[in-house]
């Protein structure tokens, strides 16, 4: 059993048009009667809910079936219904708390969603994009086949998503890698190992905070000269990247060294006791931007490291979030490819359960909310195509929904919140402007004019 594709529902995008229900009724029941749809959008207090089969992992409907007519299909993840075995006893409906399998009077038997063999009609019919067919599972299944190149049992804080990032990126990058993990949470979690043994199955080293990029540049050049294609990769924290390690990083990027540099940005020096870094946002509590009678958290905005790197005209620059793995993986693939011809920089926003002070099971949710409020904007850049928004958020949630999730912003005054909201809006507008078609158009236009002249 692996992970499966699934239909996701983004309620704020739904406008209640019922086109999904119509499409389902047409596709599955050959009628325009939306009551016979297997997906139901329910209006509730101005918002929408969705009743449909969730294709549960451990489905109760299957266990409740006395006739062996229902079965979880290992290959597709769909709960298959066998009409030739069903006896219409309706006990499956007793097992479902989401009304995902229900009696269709006109059909004379129960019906349920079968994901239209991987091409759901409802999703295609959803104009506002509230329904999506999420195929992220494919990536997990593929990556799951690759060798895990970290030792088992890394010692991260509970709920930290950096382990996910470490294991999955290294799996993808593969065994022909030399890894640099400068001081920070990544070596703290065990990448450099204990008692003379490393925590990885690839060569790993622990540079100084200041020289990560220059050491990697040398490693890559050395192997290249020897005729070996080795990925020179860094997994560094935001402090080691944006502050202490910046001069060597900037130099390597400017020279176009062939390096894959991944920043795990948890907005501070978290493993040494949560000190502020250049990436700590305005208003945030850290141990060096305390909250008390005078201090109310950091008084400066974060420096925008990925934009700074973009201006180095690197082969590839992107922001990513563990809340959006599909997006992250696409960028990782492009970054790996770009690191064979120049400097590739991936900036991953990584919420810190301990330092930001939120419950350990909330990590992915915090990462998600950061994007949904535009606090974090997901984009990518390469010199040929310029900037592209990879997950534009047209209807951002209010910033309050993000900052109230964690302790480090608990003290925020209305003014401070306004300040952050204003810079979030400004930043989102700025990136959107960069991502506008105009630059590319203008460059083409100028080029065309030059030839003509």
């Amino acid at each position, binding site marked *: 059993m692996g992970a499966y594709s699934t239909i996701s529902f983004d309620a704020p995008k739904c406008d209640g048009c019922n086109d999904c229900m119509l499409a389902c009724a047409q596709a599955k029941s050959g009628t325009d009667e939306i009551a016979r749809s297997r997906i139901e959008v329910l209006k509730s207090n101005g918002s929408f809910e969705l009743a449909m089969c969730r294709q549960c992992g451990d489905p109760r409907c299957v266990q409740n079936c*006395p006739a062996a007519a229902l079965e979880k299909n290992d290959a597709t993840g769909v709960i298959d219904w066998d009409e030739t075995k069903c*006896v219409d006893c*309706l006990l499956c409906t007793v097992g479902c708390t989401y*009304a995902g399998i229900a009696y269709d009077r006109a059909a004379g038997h129960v019906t349920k969603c079968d994901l239209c063999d991987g091409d759901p009609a409802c999703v295609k019919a959803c104009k506002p994009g509230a329904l999506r067919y999420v195929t992220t599972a494919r990536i997990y299944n593929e990556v799951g086949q690759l060798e895990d190149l970290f030792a088992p049992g890394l010692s991260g804080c509970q709920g930290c998503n950096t382990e996910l990032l470490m294991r999955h990126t290294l799996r993808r990058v593969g065994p022909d890698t030399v890894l640099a993990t400068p001081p920070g949470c990544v070596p703290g979690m065990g990448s450099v190992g204990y008692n003379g043994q490393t925590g990885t199955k690839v060569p790993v080293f622990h540079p100084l905070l200041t020289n990560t990029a220059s050491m990697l540049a040398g490693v890559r050049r050395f192997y290249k000269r020897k005729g070996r294609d080795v990925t020179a990769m860094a997994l560094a924290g935001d402090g080691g990247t944006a502050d202490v390690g910046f001069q060597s990083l900037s130099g390597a990027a400017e020279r176009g060294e062939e390096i894959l540099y991944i920043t795990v940005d948890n907005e501070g020096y978290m493993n040494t006791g949560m000190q502020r870094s250049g990436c700590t946002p305005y208003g945030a509590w850290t141990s060096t931007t305390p909250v008390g009678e005078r201090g109310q958290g950091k008084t400066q905005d974060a420096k925008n490291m990925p934009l700074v790197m973009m201006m180095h005209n690197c082969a590839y620059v992107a922001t990513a979030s563990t809340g959006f793995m599909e997006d992250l993986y696409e960028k990782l693939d492009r970054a790996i490819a770009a690191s064979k011809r120049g400097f590739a920089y991936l900036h991953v926003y990584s919420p810190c359960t301990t330092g930001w002070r939120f419950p350990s099971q909330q990590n992915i949710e915090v990462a998600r909310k950061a994007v949904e409020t535009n606090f974090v904007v997901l984009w990518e850049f390469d010199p040929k195509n310029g900037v592209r928004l990879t997950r534009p958020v047209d209807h951002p949630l209010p910033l309050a929904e993000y900052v109230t999730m964690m302790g480090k912003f608990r003290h925020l005054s209305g003014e401070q919140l306004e300040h952050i909201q204003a810079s979030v809006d400004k930043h989102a507008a700025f990136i959107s402007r960069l991502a506008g078609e105009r630059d590319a158009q203008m460059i083409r236009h100028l080029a065309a004019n030059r030839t003509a002249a």
Partner: protein
Amino acid sequence: MQTRYLIAGSSHAALSALHAIRMADADGGVTLVTRDARLPYSPTVLPYVVSGRSDPGRVFLRDEEYFRAHKVDYLPGVALAALRPQDQTAVLADGRTVCYEKLLLATGATPVIPTVEGLSGVPYHVLRTLDDAVGLHQAMSGVREALVLGGGLIGMHAAENLARTGAKVTVIEAEAHVLSAYFDADASGIIEAAFSANGVDLHLASRAVSASRDERGRIRLTLGNGHSPAGDLLLVATGVAPAIGYVNGCGIQCDQGILVDERMRTSADDVWAAGDVAQARDFFGNARVLNGILPDAVEQGRIAGMQMAGDQAAKDYAGGVPLNTYSFFGKQALSVGTDGRGFADAEVHKSFDPQTGRYLKIVMREDRLLGIFSIDRWIDAGVMWELILRRTDLGPVKAQFLADPQRAARVLMSKTWR
């Protein structure tokens, strides 16, 4: 023989426990002994084997490959005969003994045969095993008149099946109404009317006093009400009782069934019981009850299996909620929860149209759902069951719920998904 887990029975409670055990313990040895000689199947499917709708070769819930893949020793045709819980030992019907670390009793129930004078002298059928069902299916062909003793679910299913073959069917029920465990007089009345309209003769509030063969070789029952219907076939479906013969004197506490706590533990160490055999906490009161329905066997089996395997996620059993989904002559009768008996302050909202036969009854208390019952009106039984178990506050949506319970309930439960 020695095993880590010994499971007696091979139906819903047993299979659900096995599934839960394997979720938490992939390798611990499991031995599953069952009285039945077949692969696992459900008693609930039997009415459809009787009617001919289900092919008896295609009703099995697991195959040999499943047991192989899950490393389970499946021993069909070997009943549990006796227990020595103080030695952690079970004795099988073939004389073998099995030493277990953990034991689950999931032996279900067997039909109860009422004391009717002369009954043992006439041929009759019961319905609990696949052999019973195949036998009844074969016996049904050519039957012109049939007698069904008991107007519960099993009896009514069989009566419908027999009526559909064209037989003249007589049902004898001791209570004033059929299916009285799940429906009130109005609702049962709708069901009774459908049977009468299809030519089934119902003798309600009457008991069989004696049974005999008449001069034409038919089976004749004499009823307390003076009638004496006859038929070529008799089905006895007056109820079931937990199959606990093997407990006899071994020290495990029993009342009507094997008494279990909220973790499905019996009074003996390392022995659990689940499903129709177990007498467990009632959701609505303090008594321990026999619930005797399939979804509860699945639930209890799961809890027992998780406890046996030491699964950290194991939760206590919430208590038995009566529920049933019953189809008759193409209509659905659904019953979830209690009708409020025993609650002085229960409010009952009922709409009933004898003309159309559509019926809906909602029972609430302190804005919580206690029960919901419908005929020919779809409600999602699983969603309603969950609202009852969660004691969801329906106060804020009460008007919507009373007007359109299905829709309001779907909204509430859909909100719990992300």
